[in-house]
Every structure is written in C-alpha cells, then in structure tokens.
C-alpha cells in the first residue's frame, strides 16, 4: 500500500524538457537516416540488377567462368541434396500411409507423394538448401574479394567485375538449381518407393507408373519454371550482398549471413507468388 498523499503530477524540470527534446530530435534523425538508408539500398539493388541484366547481354560472355561456377554449384550441394531428396520421399510415404489406409486408398499413395514432391517439396527444399550453401558461399567469396580490393583491382584492369563475377554466378545458379531440383524429385520418388517397400513388397515399375499417372504436364511445368526464378534469386542475392559488403573483415561474415536470410525469404515469397499464378491458370 502506498501512503496517500497529495496527488502531485510530476512536472518535468526545464533541463529535463531540453534533454527530452534533444532525444526526440535525435530519434527523428535516426529514423530518417534509417529510412534514407532503406531507399538508398532499394535504389542500389535496382541499379545492381540492371547492371547485371545489361552485362548478361554483353558480347564477351565469360564462358569458362560460367562452367566453373556450374561445376561448383553442383559439386557443393549434391551430397546434401541427395540425402534430403531420399529422406523426404521416405518420410512422406511413411507418414501418409496410415492415413490413406484408413480410407482404403493406399493405391493412391505413389501418386500423392509424387505430386507433393514434384509440385512443392522438391523445389522448395532444394532451393532452401541452395540458398544456404550457394548463397552464403557467393556472399562470402565476393565479400572477401570486395574487402581485399580484388574487385577494385579488376575494375582498374578494365574488366567489368559485374560481367566477370556476377553474371556467370547468377547464370550458373539459374541453370543448375532447376537441374538439382529435378534430381531431388527423382530421388524423392525413389525414396518413396523404398518407404512403400517397408510394409510389403512393391513392384518398382508398377510404383513408378502409378506415380507418374497422377502427375500431369501442368504439375511439372510450373514447378520447373519457378525453380529458374529460385536459382536467379539465390545467385543474385548472394552476389549483391557480397558486392556491397563494407570495408572490414567482419562484413564478409555479415554478407554471407544476410544472403542466406534474404535468399531463403525470397525463395518462399517467389513460391507463394508462383502458387497463386498457377492456381489462376488452372
């Protein structure tokens, strides 16, 4: 219990008011600076995007660098994607089976699993893995090149660093991620067959034909198209974050980290949009 006394409104003393005003204006300035930085970043990312597009259509394409990047993208992610692909198929099958059995619809199992892998699980999971592995790799590599002035050195030897570094990486990601997704899809279906095999023998050919009879062109096509966008987004964000890294070494880690976060988020957002668009078309 508080002692009852005269109610006294706390009237701030003058220096207090002054302090508060200063704090308020400081806050306003901070907020404006934040907003400014945001718009600057938006402008910067736009500019970077158009430079990349422009450089993609330039005459001398760095083909060797492109091949090297394709190899690196595949090489870095293949083991992880192999394991994930198989496990997704396996898990989906094992979990869906009892539910389907309840309705006496176990014969629908292959088709259902194949559909969910091809339409959603394969693309998104693969893209998220690539966002982690490739996005961070590109962010860190280009970030450290930026910090150690290697990008500047390229520029002064009259090489457009966007053409030499960014374009091959973005293109490699755009091309390789769809391939990796198809690979993950195939392994997922294989894993699903293995899962179905746990409870009684299932003929492989039968399983596959059942699976694919459920999958139509309009299931596969939009799913493949969106993976190109996933790839482009991952490559672009990784390169952008690396390219705009600050001056100290700690900004390399930051660039890698941010590219994973932003690329993963973009993958999910693109997926959302893609699902809406396919829904409208069907």
């Amino acid at each position, binding site marked *: 219990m508080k002692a009852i006394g005269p109610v006294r409104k706390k009237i701030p003393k003058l220096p207090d008011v002054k302090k508060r005003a200063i704090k308020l204006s400081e806050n306003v300035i901070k907020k404006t600076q934040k907003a400014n930085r945001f718009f600057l970043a938006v402008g910067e990312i736009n500019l970077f995007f158009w430079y990349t597009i422009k450089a993609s259509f330039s005459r001398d394409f760095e083909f060797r660098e492109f091949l090297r990047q394709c190899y690196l993208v595949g090489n870095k992610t293949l083991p992880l994607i192999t394991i994930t692909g198989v496990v997704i198929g396996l898990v989906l099958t094992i979990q869906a089976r009892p539910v389907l059995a309840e309705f006496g619809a176990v014969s629908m199992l292959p088709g259902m699993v194949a559909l969910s892998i091809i339409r959603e699980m394969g693309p998104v999971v693969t893209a998220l893995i690539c966002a982690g592995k490739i996005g961070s790799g590109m962010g860190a*590599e280009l970030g450290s*090149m930026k910090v*150690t*002035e*290697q990008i*500047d*050195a*390229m*520029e*002064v*030897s*009259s*090489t*457009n660093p966007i053409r030499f570094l960014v374009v091959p990486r973005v293109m490699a990601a755009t091309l390789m991620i769809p391939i990796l997704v198809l690979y993950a899809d195939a392994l997922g279906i294989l894993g699903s067959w293995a899962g179905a095999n746990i409870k009684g023998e299932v003929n492989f050919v039968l399983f596959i034909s059942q699976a694919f009879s459920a999958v139509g062109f309009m299931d596969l096509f939009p799913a493949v198209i969106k993976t190109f966008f996933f790839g482009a987004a991952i490559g672009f964000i990784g390169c952008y974050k690396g390219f705009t890294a600050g001056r100290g070494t700690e900004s390399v880690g930051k660039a890698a980290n941010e590219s994973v976060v932003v690329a993963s988020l973009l993958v999910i957002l693109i997926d959302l949009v893609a699902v809406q668009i396919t829904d409208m078309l069907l």
Partner: protein
Amino acid sequence: MKSENKIASLAGSATLSPEQVIEIHNLKIGFGDLPVLKDFSVQLFEKENLVILGKSGSGKSVLIKCIVRLLNPDSGTINVLGENVNKLNDRDLAKLRMKIGFLFQSGALYDSMTIKENLEFPLKRIKKNLSQKEMDEKIEDTLENVGLSDTLHKMPSELSGGMRKRASLARTIVVDPMIMLYDEPTTGLDPVTSDEISSLINDVQKKYDTSSIIITHDIECARATADRMIMLKDGEVYLEGSLDEFEKSPDELIQSFFKPKKM
C-alpha cells in the same frame, strides 16, 4: 609511337601543356563528416617520378583511387592524359584505365587464381593481340624481374607477405602502362629487396617512359626514385620540392620522415 601522338593530340585539345600527364585541381573528398582531401592540386609531368609522402590516414591512397575513379570526389577536376576522368563514360574510362597501372597497398591479388593467372588476367584484357606464347614469355620475364620466377604456379595464399607485394607489382607492370600509381611498393620488404624494387621502378620508368606517382614511407625508396616530392598534410599539399629541398627543409614534420629511426 601511336600513343605518343595521341597524348599530344589530346593535350592539344584540352588546355594542357603537352608534358602534363595528370592534372588535379582543387580536389575535395570526404567520407561522412571526415574531410580527407580539402583543396588538393597537383600535376604529374611526363616521364617523371613523383613521390608522395604523408602520415598514415592523410589520404594518399584515396588520392590515387580518385585518379582511376575508384572513388568519386566531391568536387574538383582530375585530368588524366587530357581527359576529365569524372566525365568519361564507361567505355572511355575502361580505355583510359588500360593505360594506368595501379599497385594496391594491400596487393589485391586474386586469391582464387595462381600467380600466373593473376598476371594473365590483365594481360589478356589489355594486350589483346599477344599470342599465348608471347604472353607466357612476358609473364616469366616480369616475374623474374621481381625475383619470383619459381612461384609461377603457386596460389597467392602460399606466398609470404613480401612475395605477394612483389607479385602484385609484377601484375601491375606486366601490361606496360603509361602511368604508374604505386601505393607503398616497398612496405614490408627487407632493405635488399626494397632496393631492388626501387631500381625496378626506375628501370620501368626508363624502359617505357612511364610517369609515376609513388606513395611511400620508405625514405630510401624515395631517395632512389624521386624526381619531385610532395608532402600531404591535412588534405592539402604541405610542401612541394625536390629531394634536396626536402632533405634541407628545417620543418620538423619533414625532418621526422628523413632522420634515421632511433632504436
């Protein structure tokens, strides 16, 4: 020959006497609240070695980065070979940069490439008409000049700090630029290698008639190479003169650069 004519014609078109290769007027640049160069003017003449002295953080690296437009100044003009660097479009800028060699203070070797590939990188892009064999020869020659002939197939990470510095010097001079900008070419090297690098700078200058700006703290290197010197302080030229004038200057700051270090 061709390029010489070009300088002359370019110089004729601008208001520039022929022997001025770089002309900087009232250069001003800062980062945030920090002014780095305030009102900086300097010229570099043809076939001249200009040594720039200045304390750490005085803006020497910033200055030469402005010359190749890695940084954009807040105001002021920079003319290189008669062209206003800040008004060039991308293509012309790339052409101009081909004539300028830039040695980064940090070396900036491409660490995903071997030393040979590092030297090949600018060579392929700037001297497009060389055959592979000529290129290989040139690379080997240049590496030998900096005393690194046995590192051809090594990665930069396998070299020592001084070796990296020399490799990056090799990468800069391999394309025979008309203008050389050296950012501390001898820092971190032993006295013997430093002397070698200084005489290499002189050799390059004589052989290809290059004009150079040499940023250094190494007084021996300055003694060996300087035709003219300037001291940078507080964003302005503090003193300009010949080596002699610098050595005889009563100014304390200048003397602190010249007197031997106390043990």
